């Protein structure tokens, strides 16, 4: 096998890093990466799910890539114990954290929309709603180095 074959790049992907605090979600970095992207949920047969999904759209708002995922925005923290049945959760006073998404690096991609429902009893009845939208064609925002 030649060197070129060894380093054959399977696909260009974009790794997006987000920070969230309260209801605000910020896209803090975009990085091009040569790696396989998880398949999108474009094959049909997917039920309308109560959880989280993200969607890459073109300039006209047409979906180019859509994928359901476990909601990465946590309003609680899971706490572990070594014994069976010893998990517990604590609510966070102010949801705050970081998450990443991997999407295909598509020339036509213009916008990323995040949609989330909730498993919380009080919020679940409201159904999924768009929680954030980002312009993918913009230059990645700068982040101060630590």
């Amino acid at each position: 096998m030649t060197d070129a074959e060894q380093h054959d790049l399977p696909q260009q992907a974009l790794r997006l890093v987000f920070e969230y605090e309260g209801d605000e979600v910020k896209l803090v970095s975009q990085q091009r990466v040569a790696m396989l992207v998880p398949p999108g949920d474009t094959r049909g047969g997917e039920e309308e799910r109560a959880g989280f999904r993200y969607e890459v759209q073109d300039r006209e708002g047409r979906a180019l890539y859509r994928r359901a995922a476990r909601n990465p925005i946590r309003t609680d923290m899971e706490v572990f114990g070594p014994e069976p049945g010893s998990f517990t959760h604590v609510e966070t006073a102010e949801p705050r954290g970081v998450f990443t998404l991997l999407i295909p690096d598509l020339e036509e991609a213009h916008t990323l929309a995040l949609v989330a429902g909730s498993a919380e009893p009080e919020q679940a009845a409201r159904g999924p709603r768009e929680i954030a939208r980002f312009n993918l064609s913009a230059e990645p925002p700068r982040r101060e180095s630590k």
Partner: protein
Amino acid sequence: MSTADGSVVGVTKIVERGPDSRRWNLVLVSEGYRSSELANFATHAQDFATTFLATPPYDALKGGINIHRIDVSSTDSGADDPTACGGSGATPATYFDAHFCNSGIRRLLLLNDISVLTVVNARVPEWHAILVIVNSTVYGGGGGAVAKYSLATDAALIGMHELGHAAFGLADEYEYWAGCGIDTNRNNHPVGEPTEPNVTTSNTRAAIKWRDLIAAATPVPITTNPDCTMCDPQPSPVAAGTVGAFEGAHYYHCRAYRPEFDCRMRNLAAPFCAVCSRQIRRTIGPHLPWSEPKEVPGWFGAEDQGAEIAVADVSGNGQPDLVVFHVDNPGGENHGYYRIGFDVDAGADITGGWSTIEAVPGWFGAEDQGAGIALADISGNGQPDLVVFHVDNPGGENHGYYRIGWNLDTTGKVTGGWSGIKAVPGWFGAEDQGAGIALADISGNGRPDLVVFHLDNPGGENHGYYRIGWNLNTAGDVTGALGTAWSDVKPVPGWYGSESHGAAIALGDARGTGQIDIVVNHIDNPPGENHGYYRIGRRVNFGGDIADGITGPKLIPGWFGAENQGAGVALADISGNGRMDLVVFHLDNPGGENHGYYRIGWNLSSSGDVL
């Protein structure tokens, strides 16, 4: 207490299974190790890697997994351990600021996730999952974008559980939130199906996401919770490992179901249940070069004279289905049969079950030397049609024939009857050791062209040949192009060995160039074990010639048995990630009953390799 309190020393790939762009990459990062302690971290990381790769289902997927270690030194050792939670009061200066005692709980261990992501994005940009090992013997761990755990006994199990969330999208399967006997608002799960694959709000067999894993004799649900105000105390009424629906899951006592009584997503010490294992296989599987050979269940007879595989969405649900064909040679007249494996997934598993074995009516002769199958909407009515091919060996010169089964319904049955048997004109030699058929619009005029392949066995070295029947009309007849119905017989150059036990052909954009390539495989039969090979003819032009040369034969690794009676090959994006996958099939003839096996080579590269 920040990245000023240490430095990133370097990165080491401690498990190397191939290029990072192809493999599933797990990254282990140190926290709270002084420079002098990084050798300890190397040991801790290696211990975790060894345990991880020995844990089902990762043990069967290790060929697709790279593990990296990033050495990050800290000024001090350990993690903050406040006295408010009964800790030592230590406040070491560490790179990622790891600290116990979050929300007043000592074992809740957190750190600066964004700093970890910054380091890993720079050092291993192709990462899929990150685990931070914190140099403290206090029990603790935590989740989020970055999983973390301490060195206390069994704390690594937290890392295993958190990977289930972060890397594979698995839900918690336990039925409480704060704890059994504590919760007062966790009686009934809200309406709506959770996104995660391992919990459901459905309690009927047909609606459960993992219904294909539930045995017919298993009642659904297996358990119901008699008191939704509390956790269900009843023990499992079925054997461990039984897949079904157990009420109580996803933080609720009732109206949510988990697949098995226990699972790592419910109990840190338990193994992953079958549904979670499958989700892990689906995620990591396409990062393997090749899947393991998977058996096609059911009868193949004891003697066959040809077989083939094709991929198409027969059921129309958007998921690819496998169509397997064989020619049975029971003595006397031969007979053709096909079956369909519905919904092959990214773990190479058939999740929609197998159809019944369907007979192809009519004459196949008494001796055949190869067979093929292909699917396309030839009639143009929106339903797939089935084209079946065989090479007859009557004594003297061989002859090729095809027929068409019209209008496959979503269960895989031919509903529009069968065409007559149509002869393929011209030379097939007197002895063949494999044949195949494929359909594609090579001429670019909107009508499918029929490509027929055979492996000639003249004595000495074998040779492969194909020809093209131009422009099938809606009745399935070759109507021709440029004044000719069929192209001349074209050689597929290169080595085929002198004895083969099957061969096949597929057409498609194998290399992601937007062009049609020809893929040919054959099973070589040297003394001892057989071996499978494929080669790719780069870009078939409008004249049907291979325009950009052909690759050398590429070895398909692994077992093919010592005697085979048919081979198949197909191209499709099984994993759904935009890269073409290669499906190969062989019919094993071990003595007694034959058995069929398929395997998938994931994500063909631009050079046609499975990397």
